């Protein structure tokens, strides 16, 4: 599903260059549930942005679903995001002026589906997250867990092959977090590849595979061999503290 | 608390200079345009003699053709001017009014010593003219009642013509040849330029006041006739004597009546006068002698150009648009500050306190813009005056500056209410959490 080869990303400020991602090599097979972990500033968000085609990179190659997406135009990468990737954000990112139905509708509009097709997809997705009865509610009228479920419905409605989740339970209490996680597992079991960024080891353990990022570098950990390969060094602790 | 709110407002203005300047510019533009147009309208349509105009009455007698009314569209209206005979007998020679003036505009020749003669705009009138219309003097005064009675050739000069003839000097007592007659200067006016020539709206209401003023008693002896509208239904008005003796109307009559009883007395005097004339063969229509207060007269004759009225409506709508703009700007500015307000609320500021704080800031913005706007209006009126070739037409006076300032406060309040209400409804908690 995802293949990164020697991928690097550099952030340039006025005088300083920071390597956000350094020489990343990674393959995620279709149907995997991968958890990406790492302390703040380790490059998790950069990783997610690059994999989600939200941001470009400077060196290396990225194959998404077999297609080289290294040098895509903005338009093409937008289309690709829309068709292949579903996003779940830490702060839900629902559009406050739109009701639940219209929120789920947003990516489908860009897909260019017909009204009937969209309606079926939206209601199906909302049904699957248990919010079929709340289509007319606005985000502000929903709890955090419900909002995130709307976000999941929005991510799923377009039937993406890849689901990218950015700290999906970061703003939720434990009970709600569990509910969301179970939902993700179900989705994964139905065949959707999931890449989830989190700093919660508890959560990461539920994934089929864990990846650790540190200073933009990858440390791969197989889920079925939970070896503590990664032990924070003094430097890393320092980084965490500073950022 | 007010001091603290003012301080907060001032700090806020300084913290967002771009947005604040835009807001101030919006209100300045609105107030500038509104004050300019309101001033123009006020000078054209406002009371030319505040506190006095309701005591001044325009005199009209129905001396017209027995066969048909003067104005067939308004048959109830008497002619808009007077015949010479009636102006003399019913206005000049009546002792009832506190003051009275019969008058007309003429063009006479001034013969300055050693220079080419030129024609000057002249008002031929009685001495009460100056007191009646509160005309400002720089030197001297109107010719005396005795001089008027003796028919002495005395003249009052406008400021401009005095400058032209005598420099800036006090010319009272000096002489000047007008047509073929030597006149003595009795007085010199201070600069005087009402926007509307309110005492004679039928012969060029937008014109400047005349350049020289000579006694009415000299009109007939010198054979002076009017330069202005003459209406007649009879014959023989084309010659000089004909004009004086015929039924042609070409003079204006004004009286100052200090009380209702005085007005009634004068009205019955007029009716008796026309009854008497009727017996002698004139005034064959039924009595229709009207005393109309100055402003009602102006209104009836539509002396104010309609465009001045629409200008005022348009200017106020313009201010409305600027206020709406201000609402948008303030809303943006305040809501961007919601987190800070959340902190203030959490620290114990009541809704009312937040509301007042922001309203004060709006008013501060408005006052800044209003001052700039009034200044702008002053500049624009200056440009307009220059475009109108030296006539000082439109000047900001205290009441107009006050009006501009009042509009400013209202605009600030109206524009500030909604944004201030929105920002004071920000709950204290939300924005703390997000910090």
């Amino acid at each position: 599903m995802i293949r990164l080869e020697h991928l690097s990303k550099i952030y340039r400020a006025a005088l300083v260059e920071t390597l956000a991602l350094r020489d990343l090599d990674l393959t995620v097979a279709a149907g995997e549930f991968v958890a990406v972990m790492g302390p703040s500033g380790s490059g998790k968000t950069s990783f997610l942005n690059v994999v989600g085609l939200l941001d470009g990179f400077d060196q290396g190659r990225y194959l998404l679903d077999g297609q080289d997406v290294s040098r895509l135009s903005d338009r093409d990468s937008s289309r690709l995001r829309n068709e292949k990737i579903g996003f779940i954000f830490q702060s839900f990112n629902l559009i406050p002026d739109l009701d639940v139905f219209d929120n789920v509708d947003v990516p489908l509009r860009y897909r260019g589906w017909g009204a009937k097709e969209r309606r079926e997809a939206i209601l199906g997705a909302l049904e699957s997250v248990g919010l079929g009865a709340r289509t007319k509610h606005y985000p502000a009228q929903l709890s955090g867990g419900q909002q995130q479920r709307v976000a999941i419905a929005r991510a799923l409605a377009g039937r993406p092959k890849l689901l990218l989740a950015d700290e999906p339970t970061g703003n939720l209490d434990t009970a709600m977090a569990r509910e969301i996680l179970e939902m993700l597992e179900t989705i994964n079991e139905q065949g959707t590849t999931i890449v989830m960024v989190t700093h919660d080891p508890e959560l990461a353990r539920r994934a089929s595979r864990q990846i650790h990022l540190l200073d933009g570098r990858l440390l791969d950990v197989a889920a079925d061999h939970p070896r503590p390969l990664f032990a924070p060094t003094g430097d890393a602790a320092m980084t965490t503290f500073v950022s | 608390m007010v001091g603290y709110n003012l301080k907060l407002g001032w700090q806020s203005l300084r913290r967002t200079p771009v947005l604040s300047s835009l807001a101030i510019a919006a209100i300045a533009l609105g107030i500038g345009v509104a004050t300019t147009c309101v001033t123009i309208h006020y000078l054209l349509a406002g009371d030319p003699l505040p506190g006095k105009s309701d005591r001044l009455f325009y005199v009209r007698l129905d001396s017209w053709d027995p066969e048909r009314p003067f104005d067939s569209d308004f048959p109830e209206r008497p002619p808009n001017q007077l015949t010479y005979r009636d102006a003399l007998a019913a206005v000049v020679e009546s002792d009832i009014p506190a003051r009275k003036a019969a008058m007309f505009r003429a063009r006479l020749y001034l013969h300055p010593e050693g220079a080419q003669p030129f024609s000057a705009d002249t008002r031929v009138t009685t001495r009460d003219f100056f007191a009646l219309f509160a005309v400002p003097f720089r030197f001297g005064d109107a010719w005396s009642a005795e001089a008027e009675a003796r028919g002495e050739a005395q003249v009052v000069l406008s400021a401009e013509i005095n400058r032209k003839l005598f420099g800036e000097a006090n010319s009272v007592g000096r002489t000047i040849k007008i047509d073929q007659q030597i006149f003595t200067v009795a007085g010199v006016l201070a600069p005087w330029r009402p926007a509307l020539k309110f005492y004679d709206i039928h012969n060029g209401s937008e014109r400047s006041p005349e350049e020289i003023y000579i006694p009415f008693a000299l009109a007939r002896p010198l054979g002076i006739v009017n330069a202005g509208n003459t209406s007649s239904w009879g014959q023989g008005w084309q010659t000089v004597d004909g004009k004086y003796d015929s039924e042609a109307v070409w003079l204006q009559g004004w009286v100052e009546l200090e009380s209702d009883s005085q007005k009634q007395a004068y009205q019955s005097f007029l009716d008796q006068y026309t009854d008497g004339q009727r017996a002698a063969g004139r005034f064959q229509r039924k009595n229709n002698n009207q005393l109309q207060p100055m402003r009602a007269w102006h209104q009836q004759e539509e002396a104010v150009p309609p465009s001045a009225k629409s200008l005022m409506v348009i200017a106020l709508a313009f201010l409305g648009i600027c206020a709406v703009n201000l609402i948008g700007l303030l809303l943006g500015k305040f809501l961007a500050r919601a987190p800070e307000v959340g902190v203030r609320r959490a620290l114990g500021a009541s809704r009312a306190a937040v509301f007042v704080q922001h309203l004060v800031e709006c008013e501060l913005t408005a006052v800044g813009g209003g001052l700039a706007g009034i200044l702008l209006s002053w500049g624009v009126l200056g440009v307009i005056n220059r475009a109108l070739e030296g006539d000082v037409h439109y000047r900001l006076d205290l009441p107009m500056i006050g009006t501009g300032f009042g509009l400013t406060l209202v605009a600030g309040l109206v524009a500030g209410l909604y944004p201030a209400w929105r920002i004071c409804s920000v709950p204290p908690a939300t924005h703390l959490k997000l910090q």
Partner: protein
Amino acid sequence: MELGPIFRALVKNRTRFVLIVLEVGLALAVVVNCVHQLSEIRATVTKPSGLADEENLLRVLVQPFDPELRDRDRAESLRQADVRRLQNLPGVVAVTRTSAVPLSGSGNSSGIRLPEKRDADPIPGPNFEVSEDWLRTFGVELVRGRDFLPEDYASESVAEAILTEALARRLFPEGDPLGRQFVVFGSEPVTVVGLVAHMTNAWPDSEVADLAFFYPGRPVYERYSFYLVRVTPGLAGEVRQAIDKALLAEHSGRTVEVQSMTEVRAETFRQSQFVARLLSAVIVLLVFVTALGIAGVTSFSVTQRTRQIGTRRALGATRGEILRYFLVENALVTALGLVVGIALAFGLNDGLARFASATRLPLGLVFGGTVFFAVLGQATTLVPALRATKVPPVVATRAV
């Protein structure tokens, strides 16, 4: 493409859009009414006078101050001498004497009646007493009948007249006006011998501006006289100088003032022009302020929705789709504003009609104004909307 959700989002979050609706509505109402007034003023100011080539038609005002010239016979002979002198100036095509000057704001008017209806209300009869060569000098077009005969000018009584077509229509609604008679100056009936196509009388902004009649004579007034002088194009400047010298050489006891008809027109319309300029300034400022207002509110709404835009981008919206979103949103809001504005425009027009004697708004103007503001709305939204397209999709993953 996504009208439904855009509209529903608008309804949900009205405040800022209500501002635009109000602003566009007010602006349309005011601008349309201002432009209407402006065009009315323009129409009056630029209405053709019927006089050919006003630039090369000079009006000469002579005002005698020498008492010698008060004598009627002396005055008459001097005037005839003046005309001869003027005719002989190089560059002069034709000269006539006239009792009044078209467009000047002062002239003579006498009530006219038909001989058979002496009791009827008179028709206003602005008139010009003219001498030889008047047709050529005025440069008006004689469309029917004949000019006055040479002997008519010397006659003491008024027996013949030439009417503008407008006056002829008003006086004789039926039948051929030529040869018909009317009564004026309380005299014997006057016969219509000719018609001129059109000429504006001395009061161009009055309702009866195109009513006029001409009668032959030797206009003589004690205190002033007017000559009209038609000059060869391009020579007006030199002729003006020469006129002054020629007339003062004939008799120096008087003043001479020369103006071209273009200047006469400008002076008459000075106040109108002043109001027109003021209105134009208000219109320009208003459009400017409205554009700023729309740009300001939209810009603010873009800033407020940065995260939302990033999310949409992340969910697959292209830059073009973001641009379109804001343009469509503005179009919806502006459309609503324009509906409000059209209603307000007619309301304002009604008020102005009642209090300031305005005329009805032409529908074409309202339509034009509507289109203008629609385009203005789109154009001013373009800047903030383009800024919105620059919001990168990574905004969506940024921590709040």
